[in-house]
């Protein structure tokens, strides 16, 4: 394919890709989250176009693509965060463990407990660190102090924050640095022991040092959780993910094992994007 062609995204690329990639990575690995022909509309705007892909269980999937390509929108559909957006509708299938996420009778609260999310900007509640981390557990009905203490400690330990904050658990979470806040948000998400963890550009508001810590954290967490991370940083995607999906103008262009996709992209558009020729 020539470069002029790649700037015009292929009309129906998403149809073929998942089949190819699934074969590529072996059928034995199952998908925790699976999208088939999934579309999202904001009113009449077609934001995500007929995407078929999935997040493999216990693996880290990175979603890359230029701004406005629908990658965040896609991610936010997995725990139905887009329900909060006025006029957002979907079509096609998006399933968590084979259950349709957009089924009418599905309990959104239950879904969100299974699919945790970390946002672009750290968003701690204006409460103490302890209360922030214990928030989800309290919602689940855990009220015994010792149990909450245990959950808070283990979550903060897993988010590699415990040693830094164990002496000031009762101080306001907004008093921490941005990196600490973001790790606390991860701890907060982990505290409800989700199966899937969605991360929407978790490092975009952080300095390189904090970014490195978060990336280490993602590496530690992979295997235990199914993680999907949206990022603008190609190096980051290459460093932390096992699989990568490349979105362009609402469509999934290419999906594959990260090593393969970054070294040997199948599509010219992918190639142009990861080599920085556009985006």
């Amino acid at each position: 394919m020539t470069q002029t062609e790649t700037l015009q995204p292929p009309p129906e690329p998403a149809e073929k890709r998942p089949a190819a990639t699934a074969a590529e990575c072996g059928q034995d690995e199952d998908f925790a989250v699976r999208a088939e022909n999934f579309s999202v509309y904001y009113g009449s705007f077609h934001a995500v176009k007929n995407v078929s892909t999935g997040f493999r269980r216990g693996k880290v999937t990175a979603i890359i693509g230029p701004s406005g390509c629908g990658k965040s929108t896609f991610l936010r559909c997995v725990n139905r965060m887009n329900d909060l957006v006025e006029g957002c509708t979907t079509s096609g299938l998006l399933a968590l463990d084979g259950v349709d996420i957009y089924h009418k009778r599905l309990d959104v609260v239950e879904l969100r407990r299974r699919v945790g999310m970390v946002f672009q900007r750290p968003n701690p509640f204006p409460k103490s660190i302890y209360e922030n981390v214990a928030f989800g557990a309290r919602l689940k009905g855990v009220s015994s102090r010792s149990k909450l203490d245990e959950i808070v400690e283990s979550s903060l330990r897993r988010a590699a924050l415990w040693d830094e904050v164990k002496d000031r658990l009762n101080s306001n979470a907004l008093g921490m640095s941005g990196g600490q806040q973001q790790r606390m948000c991860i701890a907060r998400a982990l505290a409800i022991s989700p199966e899937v963890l969605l991360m929407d550009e978790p490092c975009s508001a952080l300095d390189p040092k904090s970014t490195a810590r978060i990336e280490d954290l993602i590496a530690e967490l992979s295997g235990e959780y199914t993680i999907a991370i949206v990022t603008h940083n190609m190096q980051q995607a290459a460093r932390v993910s096992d699989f990568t999906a490349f979105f362009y103008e609402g469509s999934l262009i290419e999906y594959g094992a990260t090593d393969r996709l970054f070294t040997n992209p199948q599509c010219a558009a992918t190639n142009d994007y990861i080599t920085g020729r556009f985006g």
Partner: protein
Amino acid sequence: MGVIAKKNVEKMNDSTRKVLDKSFTALSYCALAAMGAAVLLFLLPIAINGAGAVFFNATVEHWKFLEENLGRELQPEVSERIRLADEARVPLVQMIDEFENPPFAAELEESLRKSFGDAVKGISGARADELSKIVSLENPERARRLKEFSARLWASFVDTAQKARAKSGEDGTSIPLEKILHALEEELTDRVKAEISNFEKRAKLKFSVRQQVRRALCAPASKELLSEAEKLHAQNAAYQEFKSGVEELLGPLSAERKEELKLLRQRYGQPRLDLAENVMDKSVRTISVRERDSAGTEILKRVSSAEFFKGTKVGEMLRYIEGNFTAMLRPEFTAYWGFFFDDPYDSNIFGGIWPMILGTFYLTAGSMIIAAPLGICAAIYFSEYAKPCRLVSILQMCVGTLAGVPSIVFGLFGLAFLINTLKVSDSKSVLAGAITLALLVLPTIIRSCEEALKAVPRSYREAAFGLGAGKWKAIRSVILPAALPSMLTGIIISMGRAAGETAPIIFTAATSAGAALALGDVFTQPTPALPWNIYNLCSEHEMAERVAHVQYGMVLTLIAIVLALNFAAILIRAKLQRKMKA
């Protein structure tokens, strides 16, 4: 060339911009200064005059009132002051007593009474034969002859009385003479009756004849006595006016006189030095006297007492009062905190404003108890639950319209709907007023709470929902706490508005006079309240200028309450925000 021209243009633009910048800055400073000056001009007189309600030069009359009516224990030095003031008043009382009952008055009375007695005794004595002839005549001859007889009977007494009156101006006996004539007039009928009874020992009279005789014999004397007394009264009017001025200043001058007077304002002199000086100027140093102008019309004219009473005993009294003004009132600077905690007495002329403060508190607290939960619920509905639809936009419009309705309309609504239709109480009550006020502030509360909820960052909602919170859980545990500072600010500012509103409570809750209300009575009883009583005191009080300090005191108290509420709002907001910001 072109480059230089362009540079110049740039420079000019730059300098224009700078001038504009500076003039805008100057303008805004001017506006700020003007606002500050306006607030100062407005608040300063209120603060100064309002403080005068608590801090003032209290005369002994103030302490007397506190002791006798409120049962306050006085400090020994205050009691000493009262004693000294009373002592200083003794000579004045003596002067007045002497003036009204001079020693020669007894002599005068004796001579008048003698003449009076001689005349009356004529009925059954020297002239009895003549009278018996007359009564045996037929009418109308009897009536005519009776009239003649009566005139002759009283001729000598009338002459004496007229002479005494004519002389009274010179010898200063007009005061006692007026009294004597009045006393004689009162005795007249009884004396004549008694003498007729004596006369009847000779010839029994028919009932109708007896009446006729009595009436005929009383008439000329009574007429004469009254007309002479009237003339004397006019002569004495200036002194009486002066004396009532003195009594207004110092209180009744004798214990018996005090018993006669029922209103508190008459039973005590001026409790404050400023009021006392005012009375001194208006009613003691100057008096109004009746005079006839050139056309013969009677007019009231203000004259200086010193000029008018020059050289008389009254002039001496005035000099004594001038010289002993301080000694008789003993003013001393005092802080009367009771202004806030005492009940008012005699339409706020004495005492404090406690019932008004308490009433304002009841109304404000009541309206908030009703409006705050309703407003918060409505705001949560509008900002979190309501989907944009026709009904919701109509509701929103209603809230907006409600916010613009004049407060007097709320008052009328309260009367017509709450009291007359729903009958929440038989007539005005704190409950009806509180509901009306609640309706008045409800739109403001809804709006401010809605804004507060909408201002909660989206990220908080996302975080809460992302962690598996249901809608209500997210609202209760994240959104409401985050919106609380702004919500509280809005509610407290509404509270200030409720505290200061007058129109809605006129028809629903306010009464001009009344004691402090017990908490149990708020459902049935009306209450005095600061805003309404300020209006009442300024416009409908019969002695508005005498209670000026109370008016200012009430205004200051109300402003203080409202400002304190606003200040509390700022503090709470700052504190909660600090807590949230870590």
